[in-house]
């Protein structure tokens, strides 16, 4: 079984503080949906409202079309994986997994069999009788997933479950979660501040800031066509220019900045708003001579070799710091600090967007 989740104008207030502000989203049955945002943006509150531990102060939450207003967490067809996993330390692994079945009055032999089956699914076939404290971080993770799957939820809710793991394991668990989701067809709602996780795993991503849903789209659209300055700056790296639109022509506009006047693509809701120009580091090229269009003379200040790409820091005549990324194809010539070059970019890759930028979360 799998079910969609509809959030209809959902708000959450804590005293005078509005943690979640009019969130509207329809999450499809079987979808892998992520809420992405900096800490304190309200994404965990949304998860707690879907699981039933917090009541929305306004709005309606429907799971499988049914209003969840008076349904207690233990009656909802959801299973929550906590950030700290919240495994029961006093029960052996198999009892942890079978707890949801025990509660439902399933007899012991069936419970044990089901727990072992789920342990095989999460690739921990010999862990049934171990204590939780004997498991490694990644193994605990799997047990938590198995425990949640055991109750055969229609919707699985995950609250940054990978944040405690080291990088390699995190990447491995990402793929694993994705595979489990595909196999079980359960709707996954995933909360994270890690854009890499959200982009790599999700069918759709909802980017949140200050309680508001900023954009809901596929990972590709979020990255390539962000709806506003917050989304653009929170997801991925950018060169950001302050300035103003000097004249628009269809989808494109002339944008005047301290670094020069550029041709760029006009984003949504930009008329009359305060706008900025966003330019991804991988969409600029550094060349010896000036380009015909969108060309900035710069001086290279620093070069960082990142392995698969080379990150080049430079400064233009207005003092603005700019970043360019070149793919390391083994043949690229690496500029040296002090070198004077020209930064050139295609108008199609420069976006004019409205709204504030994100103060970067140091964890992200």
């Amino acid at each position: 079984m799998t079910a969609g989740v509809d959030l209809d104008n959902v708000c959450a207030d804590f005293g005078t503080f509005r943690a979640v502000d009019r969130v509207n989203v329809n999450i499809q049955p079987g979808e892998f949906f992520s809420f992405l945002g900096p800490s304190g943006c309200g994404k965990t509150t949304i998860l707690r409202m879907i699981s039933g531990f917090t009541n929305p102060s306004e709005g309606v939450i429907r799971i499988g079309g049914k209003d969840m207003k008076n349904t207690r967490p233990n009656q909802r067809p959801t299973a929550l994986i906590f950030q700290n996993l919240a495994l029961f330390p006093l029960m052996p692994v198999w009892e942890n997994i079978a707890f949801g079945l025990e509660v439902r009055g399933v007899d012991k032999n069936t419970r044990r069999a089901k727990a072992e089956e789920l342990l095989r699914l999460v690739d921990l076939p010999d862990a049934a009788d171990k204590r939780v404290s004997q498991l490694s971080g990644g193994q605990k993770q799997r047990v938590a997933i198995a425990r949640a799957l055991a109750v055969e939820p229609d919707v699985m809710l995950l609250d940054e479950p990978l944040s405690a793991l080291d990088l390699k394991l995190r990447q491995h668990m990402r793929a694993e979660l994705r595979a489990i989701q595909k196999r079980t067809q359960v709707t996954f709602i995933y909360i994270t501040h890690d854009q890499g996780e959200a982009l790599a795993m999700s069918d759709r991503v909802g980017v949140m800031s200050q309680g508001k849903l900023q954009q809901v789209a596929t990972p590709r659209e979020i990255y390539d066509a962000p709806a506003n300055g917050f989304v653009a700056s929170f997801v991925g790296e950018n060169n950001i220019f302050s300035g103003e639109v000097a004249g628009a022509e269809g989808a494109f506009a002339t944008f005047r900045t301290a670094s020069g006047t550029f041709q760029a693509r006009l984003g949504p809701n930009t008329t009359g708003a305060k706008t900025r120009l966003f330019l991804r580091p991988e969409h600029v090229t550094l060349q010896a001579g000036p380009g015909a269009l969108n060309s900035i003379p710069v001086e290279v200040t620093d070069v960082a070799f990142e392995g698969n790409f080379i990150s080049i820091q430079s400064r233009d005549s207005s003092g603005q710091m700019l970043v360019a990324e070149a793919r390391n194809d083994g043949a690229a010539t690496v500029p040296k600090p002090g070198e004077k070059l020209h930064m050139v970019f295609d108008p199609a890759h420069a976006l004019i967007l409205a709204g504030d930028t994100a103060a970067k979360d140091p964890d992200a």
Partner: protein
Amino acid sequence: MKDLLNRYGPVLTSIFILLTAFWLLALVILPNIYLFENSFRPYLPIAEVGGPNDTYSFDNYLKFFESPIHIRVFIWTILYSSIVTVICFIIAYPLAYYLAKVADLKLVPTLFLLLFIPLWVSEILRSFAWFIILSLKGPLNFGLIGLGIIEDPIRWMTGFRSVMIGLVYTYVLFMLFPVYNAVQSLDTNQIEASEDLGAPWWRTHWRVILPHCKPGIASGSVTVFMLSAGSILVPTLLASTNSRWFTEIIQQWMFESQDWNTGSAYAFLLLIICTVFVSLVMRIFKVKLSDIAK
């Protein structure tokens, strides 16, 4: 030791250690050794002390086993102390859970203060207060009759019920605090995880919260049980002719019969048998001594 020396210098350090040693030795160990030694000697006129009749034996201990009344009183004491312990737990557990997990954080210090204030009044006064409350024409009967719950006044102070009321009132906080600490140390996510997996509230308590609190409950229970079994004040004030506490018998031996030797033997019997009883109960509930020390 070295830290202590570095911090306070040799003079203060020696004073601390000597004071602690004095307290342990002179006020705890020596009196106990004195009583222990005496418990094996017969009760003799002063002139015969140290004489040929003053020999070690188990006679004082055997007196207990030869007296069915004393054995019965002892069993009552253990039984009713156990009941007091259970009642204390039944009262303290919901309260501890409320204070640790439900109550508004801002309210908790006030609630604790309210719980503490009765402790500032001496045990004697509190027991006397209950004596007044429970007396035949006391406020409790007056109130119950006034509310129309009962027609005739109830004789509260008969049997063990007034003793139990007094003991529960006196020692319930010794149960509350360890249990509160235990509940408080439980990650709230565990409670929510249990509920999220479909558990009704009682099963969450039974499978998640209570097992976690076991060491706290054990430590509170041992304290309440030992204090109740060893209490002299409450039974003296609140017991009636048909309810006697074992400590009263020890007191009779020591102060009415002036027989400190038998009194000592009885006191050690109380200590030893209670310790054995507590160890047995701990074994049944699979609690280790090291769990309690946490």
